[in-house]
């Protein structure tokens, strides 16, 4: 199938390309930017792209949660961390020396290459049938039936995280 750019599918394909670009570009900024704040901005851009990719994977719910949680919460928390613990201006997001940099680049590209080769080389077999459509209703149902235990555990983890960060955050404070 070869959709023309003027059709709806073609436009969707174009938007998908934009999302891919945002993801990749954002990720590159996130690891290469000199200043922490720009790295966080890059991370946010990357997450917006990832949300778009999720949307194309037919799960708008997860896409919106990605925006809500990652951009609206995690990135904001990171910016707060930057504000409260601003690194020295001369080495904002300090990098290790050139040898380590080169080595890590090498190993990371090897890893990526391996994964990509695996992804493209393997013969993925499609599931014979689908038991549901993966819609929001199905999602909610399985979240509260099959995965209810995990759901509860995650809420415990979140509670522990809240209490833990409160304890850690208050510990060093000189006055209330």
């Amino acid at each position, binding site marked *: 199938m*070869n959709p023309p750019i003027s059709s709806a599918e073609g436009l969707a394909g174009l938007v998908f390309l934009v999302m891919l670009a945002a993801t990749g570009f954002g990720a590159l900024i996130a690891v290469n930017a000199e200043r922490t704040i720009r790295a966080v901005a890059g991370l946010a851009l990357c997450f917006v792209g990832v949300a778009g990719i999720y949307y194309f994977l037919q*799960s708008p719910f997860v896409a919106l949660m990605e925006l809500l*949680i990652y951009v609206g919460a*995690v990135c904001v928390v990171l910016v707060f961390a930057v504000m409260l*613990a601003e690194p020295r201006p001369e080495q904002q997001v300090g990098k290790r020396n050139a040898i380590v940099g080169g080595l890590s680049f090498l190993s990371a590209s090897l890893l990526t290459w391996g994964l990509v080769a695996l992804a493209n080389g393997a013969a993925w077999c499609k599931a014979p049938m689908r038991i549901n459509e993966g819609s929001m209703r199905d999602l909610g149902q399985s*979240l509260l039936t099959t995965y209810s235990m995990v759901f509860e555990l995650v809420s415990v983890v979140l509670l522990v*995280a809240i209490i833990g960060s409160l304890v850690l955050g208050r510990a060093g404070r000189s006055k209330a």
Partner: protein
Amino acid sequence: MNILDLSNHLQTYLTIGAFLFGIGFYGLLQRQTLIGMLISAELILAGASVNFMAFNRFLAPDPTVGQIFTLFIMAIAAAEASIALSIVIAVYRNYKTIDVVDVADLEG
């Protein structure tokens, strides 16, 4: 494969997942500050999530599994970010730096 039709192929998603994972891995090795490392870790998680979602869309018999897994990853990531923030602040209070090497030098 037409470039405008990329969104319908599993390989596209696996590649972008691998790419994110690789970048995150590179950043984790490369970065020296706690926040920088945290950012890289988030990228690795994002790469993994994209993979889950991709398999969920194209291969899984029950297409809610991958979504639920991704949601859990998000929850964990949020918890991780909040804990990491407080650790960063605690470290900064004590050492006035968030550089991991400096913290190690101080034998903290």
